[in-house]
C-alpha cells in the first residue's frame, strides 16, 4: 500500500530526529504505511535535504544537536507554505507543542505512538485534519480565560495570542479538553462531525505568529510588552 497525494505521487516526508532508535522507529512505521521518508539528524542535514525539493510533510524534533526545530519550522513556513508540519515530542507537553504551533506547525506526534497511530496521524494531517490533544486544548482555553481575567502578569509558558479565536472555536477546544469526541462536540454545538477537524486547523493557523514584527505587535496587543 502506498499513500498518495492528490497528484497520485507518493507522499514525501522529511523526518528530522537526532535520536537514532526513535528515528528508525518512526521511519519504519511511516515507510510501512507507504510514505516516502527521508530522514535527517541535524538542522544542517535537514536543510541539505530541502535543497532537493519540498516534502509534503515535515516531522521534526525540537531539540536538535545544531539548533532548535522551531527555526526549521519557521523556514519551512516561509519557503514552502504548502508543507504540512508536525512536531515530534516525547511527552506532548504544551511547552514544546505550543511553541511549534506559534511558528506554523499544525500538529504533534508522540515519539512512542503505536505505528498504526503514527501512520493515521500523518494521513489525517495530509487530509487537512490536524491532531490536537486534550492537554493542548486545555492549555489554549486556559490561556483564553487568563487573557480575559488579567493581563497584569504574563502567565508562565510560551507566548500565545488567543485573541483571534472565535467563541465557537473556544467551545470546541473546551470539548476536546474535557475528553469529548469530535462527534460528541459536533452534536453539542450543532455542527457537522466532519467540520470539527477543519476548525482545529483554523485554530492552529490563528495561533501562528507569522513574523517577528507581528510577534512584537501581538505581544503589545496582549500587554505582554510595555512600550
Amino acid at each position, binding site marked *: 500500500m502506498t499513500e498518495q497525494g492528490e497528484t497520485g505521487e507518493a507522499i514525501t516526508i522529511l523526518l528530522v530526529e537526532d535520536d537514532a532508535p526513535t528515528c528508525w522507529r518512526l521511519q519504519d512505521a511511516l515507510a510501512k504505511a507507504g510514505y516516502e521518508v527521508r530522514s535527517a539528524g541535524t538542522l544542517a542535514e535537514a536543510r541539505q535535504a530541502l535543497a532537493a525539493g519540498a516534502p509534503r510533510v515535515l516531522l521534526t524534533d525540537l531539540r536538535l544537536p545544531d539548533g532548535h526545530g522551531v527555526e526549521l519550522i519557521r523556514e519551512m513556513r516561509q519557503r514552502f507554505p504548502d508543507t504540512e508540519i508536525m512536531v515530534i515530542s516525547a*511527552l506532548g507537553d504544551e511547552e514544546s507543542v505550543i511553541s511549534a504551533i506559534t511558528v506554523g506547525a499544525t500538529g504533534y506526534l508522540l515519539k512512542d505512538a503505536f505505528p*498504526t*497511530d503514527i501512520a493515521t496521524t500523518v494521513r489525517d494531517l495530509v487530509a487537512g485534519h490536524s491532531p490536537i490533544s486534550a492537554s493542548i*486544548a*486545555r492549555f489554549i482555553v486556559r490561556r483564553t480565560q487568563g487573557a480575559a481575567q488579567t493581563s497584569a502578569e504574563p502567565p508562565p509558558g510560551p507566548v500565545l495570542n488567543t485573541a483571534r479565536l472565535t467563541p465557537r472555536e473556544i467551545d470546541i477546544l473546551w470539548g476536546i479538553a*474535557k*475528553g469529548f*469526541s469530535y462527534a460528541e462536540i459536533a452534536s453539542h454545538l450543532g455542527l457537522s462531525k466532519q467540520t470539527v477537524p477543519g476548525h482545529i486547523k483554523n485554530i492552529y493557523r490563528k495561533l501562528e505568529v507569522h513574523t517577528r514584527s507581528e510577534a512584537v505587535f501581538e505581544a503589545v496587543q496582549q500587554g505582554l510588552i510595555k512600550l
Partner: protein
Amino acid sequence: MSEIAAKAPTRPRRRLIASRLVPYLLLQALIVIVTILGIRLLQPSDPDDYAVSDFSAREDGLTRPITLPHFTSSRYSLADPPCYTGTFTFPSGDAASGWSVYLPRFSNAVEVAVNGVVVLDSRRDANANRPDRNTPQIAVIPASLLREGANEITVRLFVWGPLKGFLDTVYVGPDAALRPAYETRTLLFVTLPVVFSAWQAILAVILAIMWLMRRHEPVYGVLATAMVLGVVQAFAPPPVPPATVSHLAAVLLASAPIESALIVAFGVLFFGWRWPRYGTLLFVPGVAVFVIGLIGGPPLPRILFLVLGIPTVGLCLFLMACITAIAVVRRQDAASFTIGCAVTIVLTCWIQDMLTVLEIVNNDRIFVSRLSYSAMLVAIGAGLTWRFARALNQVDSFAGQLVTRVREAEERLKASFAREEERARAATLANERTRLMRDLHDGLGGQLVSIVALSERGSTGAAITDAARAALKDLRLVIDSMDDIGGDLMLALGSWRERTTAQLRPHDITLDWRVATPQGLPLHPELRPWHVIQIVRILDEAVTNAVKHAQARRIAVTIDTFDAGQGPYGVISVTDDGSGFALAGNGEAAGAGQTARGLRNMKSRAARCGAVLDLTSDASGTRVRLKLPQRFPDSDMAAG
C-alpha cells in the same frame, strides 16, 4: 515618731513652695516699682509758660482766691456750680496767631468763657465728662474776643458726686504751643483706650467662637463675656446728669465689678480648678449696683459704686493675684507667670488710683486702672490664642507621630508578610517535592527498576515494552497533573481518555465514554494535583485489570453527578464485560495475586482523597464505582 513621719514630707514641700514663691514675689515687687516709675515718667508735661493758676473761686456764694489745681467739694446738684474767675494777658502784636484755652484735666465737666463769652462746654462731649478717663479739652478763642492786655477767663466746673470736683491748671496761649500737649494727652487717654477696646472686641469675638465650638471649656466663654462687658462700657456714651437715662448709667457702673469678678472666674477655670460655690458672692456687689441703679435714680448708684464697686474691683484683683501666685508655685509655667505679672501691674495701678482719689498722692487726678486693665485683658487674650496655637501644634505633631508610627507598623507588617510568604513558598515547595517524589516513586521509579530487572534477566520484547510504556504514561500523568485545571476534574479526565484510548487501540478494546450531564462533574476549587493523580491511577488500575486479567472487549466509563441534598458529588464508574473475578466476603479479591494487590491499592488511593470505591464483579463483568467526595481533603488522609 508619727509626728516626725508626718512632718518629714511637709518640710521639703514647704521649702519647695518657698523656693518658688520668694523669687516670684520679688519679681512682683520689682514690677510694682517699675510700674510706679513708669506712671511717673509717662506723666505728660504741659507748657508751663502759658499756665493760668491764680483764680478767684466763687463757691456756695463765697468768693476766695485759689491756686489751681483745685479740688472742690462733692455735690449732687448742677445748679450754681463753682465758678473760677482769672485773668490772662494777651500781648499786643500777637493777633496773627490764634490763641486757645487748654484744660488738661477736670472733673466732671467744664464751661469756659472768655470775656463773658462761652468758648467751650464739655458737657456736649459725653466722653469728655467720664471721671474714669483723663480726657483733655482745647478750644480756640475767637480773635475778636481777645483784647490787648488783660482778659478775663471764667471756668464753671460741673460736679456730680460722690467724687470731688477737680480742676487742673488752665493754659491760655498760642494754639501752636498748647496743641502738642493736648495731642499727647489725647493719644494717651482717648485714642489708646479706644485701640485697646477695639482689640478687646476682636478678642471677644474670637473667644466667643472658641467657646461655641468647645462648650466643655467655659473659660473661653467667661473671658469673652468679660471682654464684651468691657467693650460695651468703653463705647456706650455715658449720660450726662441732666439726661434722664439713669438706668443706662447704672448698667455702666455695674460693669466694672462684674468684669473683675468674671476675671477671677476666668483665673480659677484657666488654672484648672473648680469654681467654688461661694465664689458667686463675688458677683453680688456688681449685681447690687445694677439692680439699685435700675430702681433708684442717680446719684444712688454712683455712691453705691464708690462704696461697693471699687472695693470689689480691688478685692477681685487681690484674689486674682493670689490665684496666679498659687498657680505659679504649682505650675511654674509661662502662662501663670505672664498673667501674674499683668495682675500685679493692674493692682498697682488700682492702688495708685485709690491713693489719687483719696488725695494721698498728688497725681493731677490721672486714673490709670482702666487703661492697665484693658492692656491686661489683651495680654490674656493673646496668651489664650498662644495656648490655642500650641495645642494645634501638638495636634500636628501628634498626627505626624501617628503617620510615622503607622508607616513603621506598615513596614513591619510588610516585612513579616514577606517573611511569611517566603516561608509559605518554601513550605509549598517542600510539599511539592515530597509529593512529586512519592508520585515518581509509586510509578515511574518502580517501572524503571522493573525495566532494569527485565533487561538483566535477558527478557526481550513485550515485557520491557510494556514496562517502558507504563513508565512514559506515568511520567505524562505526573506532568499533566501539575497543570492548573481550575478545579475541573473533567479536564484531567479528558487527557486520561485520550491516553487510555491510545492504550486500548492495539488491544482492540472499545472505550465507551458517557458523560451524563453537560457540565460533567461538579467544580472543586480545593482540587489539588495529588488528588488528580490518585483518581487517575485508580481509573488506570481498573482499566489495566479489565485488559490484563478479565480479557474484556469493551470498557465503559460513565461520569455522573448526583445530589442527595447536601451538595452535588460526582461518581465515575468503569464497567467491563470481562470474566470478572471472585471476591471474598469482605469485598477483597480472593487470593494474594496481583489483582488482589491492585484492588487494595485502589481502595487505599480512594480513601486518601476522601472518595469511596465500590467493586462488584461476577462472570458478566466487573464494575468499579468511584464516589467522589463533596469536598476533597486538604491533607493526605492516609498519610496523616
